[in-house]
């Protein structure tokens, strides 16, 4: 039996692609009868968002998939990007197997997918002419965030929020249709955003943008595995997480280098700036999530208590 794994990133160099290859190798050690075929860089499904549909109807077995892409079908998944809720990689890693993780898995199961790994990545701002610090510094800028909750926060901070597909970002920054973007740190490099921006606000311990982009699986395919195979998957996931988190440091350095070589300034958010952003997010995005999504309040509460218990 061959399991297809689809994702949107570059083969061999991207952290997610490398981590999935580690995962496949680990599974192979314990369950050699399972074969995998990886389709990197959108080579199977051109629209990354649509991978979820293929997982749901089991025409695809596995994908590396930022869960927020599926909020059109599962609004609860917005919790995996909620601005300022989880403030750095350490916190995110500690949430593995927490009540929050378990609840998220239940929601995923109810929607036909199974979360296999616990891969989190940080992100931040990149901007053309103005350094982005606290919320007051985005006022009047034309920004793209790609996620409705971040858009809510940016709009509340006075930015003019623009929606456009990711393929247009590069040209939009180049010609000035956009002044800045918010996205994951790796995308700054892979989408060559550093070529068109002169400031980046990323890194450090105060990260506004933490995103879960795990390896997920069709629930049907998961249920078809034997208990031994499932166990192999879980152990391989743990190995891949260790590898993946190690790569994050590497990716951070690489991004820093790319920006600095392009002559851009890179800085983290200070404690005060971060507090101001989180206060704003709490009033806007979190509130919106709590009122608009049925389990919203419960999920935010779960993250907060899980984080406290993990300390």
């Amino acid at each position, binding site marked *: 039996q061959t399991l*297809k794994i689809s994702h949107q990133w570059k083969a061999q160099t991207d952290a997610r692609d490398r981590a999935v290859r580690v995962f496949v190798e680990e599974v192979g050690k314990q369950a050699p009868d399972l074969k995998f075929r990886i*389709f990197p*860089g959108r080579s199977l499904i*051109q629209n990354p968002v649509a991978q979820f549909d293929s997982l749901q109807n089991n025409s695809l077995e596995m994908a590396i998939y930022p869960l927020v892409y599926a909020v059109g079908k599962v609004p609860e998944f917005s919790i995996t990007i909620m601005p300022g809720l989880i403030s750095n990689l350490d916190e995110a890693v500690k949430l593995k197997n927490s009540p929050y993780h378990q609840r998220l898995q239940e929601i995923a199961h109810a929607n036909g997918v199974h979360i296999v790994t616990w891969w989190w990545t940080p992100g931040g701002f990149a901007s053309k002419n103005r350094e982005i610090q606290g919320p007051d510094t985005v006022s009047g800028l034309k920004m793209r965030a790609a996620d409705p909750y971040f858009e809510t926060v940016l709009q509340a901070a006075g930015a003019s929020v623009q929606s456009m*597909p990711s*393929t*247009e970002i*590069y*040209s939009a920054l180049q010609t000035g249709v956009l002044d800045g973007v918010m996205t994951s740190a790796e995308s700054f490099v892979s989408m060559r955003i550093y070529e068109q921006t002169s400031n980046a606000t990323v890194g450090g311990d105060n990260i506004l943008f933490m995103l879960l982009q795990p390896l997920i699986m069709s629930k049907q395919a998961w249920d078809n595995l034997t208990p031994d195979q499932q166990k192999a998957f879980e152990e391989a996931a743990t190995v891949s997480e260790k590898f993946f988190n190690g790569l994050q440091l590497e990716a951070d350095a690489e991004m820093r280098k790319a920006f600095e070589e392009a002559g851009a300034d890179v800085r983290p958010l200070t404690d005060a700036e971060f507090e101001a952003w989180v206060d704003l997010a709490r009033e806007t995005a979190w509130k919106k999530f709590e009122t608009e999504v049925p389990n919203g309040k419960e999920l935010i509460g779960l993250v907060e208590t899980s984080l406290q218990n993990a300390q």
Partner: protein
Amino acid sequence: MTELQIGSLILVCTTLVLFSGVPIAFGLTVVSIAFLYVFDGPGSLSAVPRTFLDEISGFALLAVPMFVLLGSLIGSSRAGADIYEALHRWLARVPGGLVIANIGACGLFSALSGSSPATAAAIGKVGVPEMLKRGCPAGLATGAIAAGGTLGILIPPSVTMILYGVATETSIGRLFVAGVVPGVLLVAIFCAYAWAATAFAERNVTQPRDHYTLKEKIRASGTVMPLFAIIALIILALYGGYATPSEIAALAAMLAFLYVALVYRIVNRDNLWPIFGNAVRESCMILLIIAASGLFSYMMSLLYVTQTMADLLVGWNLNRWVMLLVVNVFLLVAGCFLPPVALILMTMPILQPVLEANDFDMIWFGVLMTINLEIGLITPPVGLNLYILRNVAPQVPLMTVLWGSVPFVLIMMGFMVLLCFFPGIALWLPNQMFGP
């Protein structure tokens, strides 16, 4: 069955089905569904409707119907006739002058739209009937526009190059700049060919060419002047940071509508229906073919045909230049069936490591590959630009359209060879601008 055997079967079946006279869009759908069903099982069919829809629900493709509308506005009103009358009066002394003007327009439109089918549809709609009316050989007229239209993905901005840049992690800015000189050179070579072909066809003619006085030239240009204002506005909107390439199409269509409505007083229903009826008819044809080739690409990728072939030739361990030749022949054949973007996404993960190991510059290869994929747009059985021309100029037989594009295919192939011997054609400008 091995992937290679499946691939050969797909090649044969697709060619047969498409040449049978089934509409291209439906033929590609039939082949895709049949192969998915037979070689991957009924389960994979559940992905079919979304794949089909996804392909045309992207923002970048909005440009296509809007540029088609633009072409229809100019082409179905008297505006098109006036423009070409003015061009003809200015260019009557030059052999093939009108064809040259059309190729130039394709170059300009390519620079604006980033989309090959949009360019071919907009210019072809106006240009082909006017060229035919003035006695230009049909094959030259359609060939020039089909080929000129392909430049949309070479001359920046280009969505295809953005995806190549993302897929290979090469600088998109450099890629864009690298496409400029080859794009302009190709325009120039196409023009030279048009001039030579016309001069050759008229070699035994003793009858003098039409002649117009300066007064006549200027009089014919009067109503066309607003058009230059429109082009200037569009360029300003794009490079001034007011609109992205996909949005330009809408602005252009809107301005063209105002132009046609104000200058030619086309406002009533009887005049508008031919314009809009044709626009939706043509964009429907183009977009359904694009949707179906998305499905076809999905099928090819799922069955791992393209990837297996790329893997295979990578494993041959050939000499550097032989490998480059084999890779290009492979892309040329695959390009007959697959759209540029799909081919880049499927093959680059496999080809890139080998190309880099052989010390080929990835920016240079990006330009080479783009020209290669452009050829695919004007070769059957799946040559989108050919079918667009076929549709905007139904009076020209398909065989004439096909033969007409052959010289341009040969020119592009020759240019690819030139690019191999002189990589500087692509790399000189980016190296000047960004340093080596």
